């Protein structure tokens, strides 16, 4: 089966430094892929490359069955693959929560009533409907995260790319986020330093280091320098995938 999203030998420079150097990655439908790596390894850069916010100097970005190069190409990618930014304040720019969640569907050309009904339905499904009329910049950090997630889910994406989604979540909201993610149909690409979170969610893991992506095993302990192992319930399955 071909991948939903793939990087094929991609090289990306930021600020004059090569961050990705021939990186390969594949995200398949139904998969929840953990992307781990030290600070500054380029995890955020990799996610940005997948939705065309960074353009590779070499290699190919293949998304939903076609190679993507131009802003127009990535326009169609962005309707189906949603990126959650590291800082929720970057994402929630609408006055109220319901406005923000309806923003994406409206951009997809839905009618106003439809879009707001869909937004409300998503909030309801995620147990966030009590936040609907709140002013976005007065939400707590954790609430902002969950609303961001709702706004992305409202786009009915085939793939969700989440950049450190459990930052500033308390235990309760973190459990809620996990619960929500496990019930989604979309493929997930998860960047996180939160071991326990990845352990519970990820079906496969890769490690980004020195600009390239290599398989990692989901295991509780760091076994070698090269591989971050995060213990999983079905480790054998992951070994096979890795």
């Amino acid at each position, binding site marked *: 089966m071909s991948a939903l999203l793939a990087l094929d030998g991609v090289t990306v420079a930021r600020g004059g430094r090569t961050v990705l150097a021939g990186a390969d990655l594949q995200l398949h439908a139904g998969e929840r892929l953990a992307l781990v790596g030290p600070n500054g390894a380029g995890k955020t850069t990799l996610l940005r490359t997948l939705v065309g916010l960074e353009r590779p100097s070499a290699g190919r970005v293949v998304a939903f069955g076609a190679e993507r190069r131009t802003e127009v190409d990535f326009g169609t990618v962005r309707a189906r693959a949603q990126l959650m930014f590291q800082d929720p*304040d970057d994402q929630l720019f609408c006055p109220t929560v319901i406005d923000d969640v309806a923003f994406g569907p409206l951009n997809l050309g839905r009618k106003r009533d439809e879009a707001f009904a869909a937004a409300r339905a998503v909030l309801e499904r995620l147990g966030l409907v009590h936040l609907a009329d709140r002013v976005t910049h007065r939400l707590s950090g954790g609430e902002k995260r969950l609303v961001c997630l709702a706004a992305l889910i409202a786009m009915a994406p085939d793939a969700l790319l989440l950049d450190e989604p459990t930052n500033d979540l308390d235990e309760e909201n973190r459990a809620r986020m996990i619960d929500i993610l496990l019930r989604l149909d979309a493929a997930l690409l998860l960047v996180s330093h939160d071991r326990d979170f990845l352990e519970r969610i990820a079906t496969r893991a890769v490690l980004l280091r020195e600009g390239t992506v290599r398989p990692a095993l989901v295991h509780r302990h760091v076994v070698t320098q090269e591989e971050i192992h995060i213990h999983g319930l079905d480790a054998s399955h992951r070994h096979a995938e890795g």
Partner: protein
Amino acid sequence: MPAALGAAPVRVSFGIAALDPRTRLLGAFAGVLAVALLSSLWVLAAAALGTFALALAAGPGTAALMRRLVHLEGFMLVLLALLPFTVPGTPLFGAPPFVASAEGFARAVQILLKVNACGFLVFALLGGLEPVRIGAAALALKAPERLVQLFLLVVRYGGVLRAEAARLQEAMRARAFAPRASLTWSLHTWRTYGHMLGMVLVRALERAERVSEAMRCRGFSGRLPASAERPALGAADLAFALLLAAAILAAFAAEHLA
């Protein structure tokens, strides 16, 4: 002018909070426009009194009103002190070259009344309204979309940027930075503030970049979708509009009769 005065308490009884933001925005706009066109001191005085009563009864609370007025009146005092001396006309007092003219004095009082009447009206109608709702109302009233976008983004990110600047300042203080309280600050103090300002600017720019990227990621192509729920105007809105129109008409009539 009695009509203008008399209308105010009646309006209050409807409760400003019950009015649609669009009504409040339009009302403020119409009222300010009318006040700007009036010139009779008596009519203006009546308008100022009426709007003051409205602000007291319907604004964001007396304490908040007074706090906001302090800013306004400070500026007005300067105007009141300077204007009589800069407008030529019948001398009132003083010796050349500093002569206060009656015309200048009248002009100063006129401006004072106008500004206060407008200020009271805006406090009364918009003071209790979330800025985001003002933006939404402006959009609903077909105000230029770019302007409204700008307004809403300023409201949304003003606080974020302020918080960023405050965090930087705290971080500076946490490392024992204290601005030298001398007339000529030390070079270190100047340099530190320079760094801070630069950092705030750079971060604001990067933030703007990321916000725009996040918007593109959700399919944004340059037009903001219309805002959320927009209920129909109610009886209170109609009543308010009629009363305001009556007050404005009465004010113009009084001015012509005077």
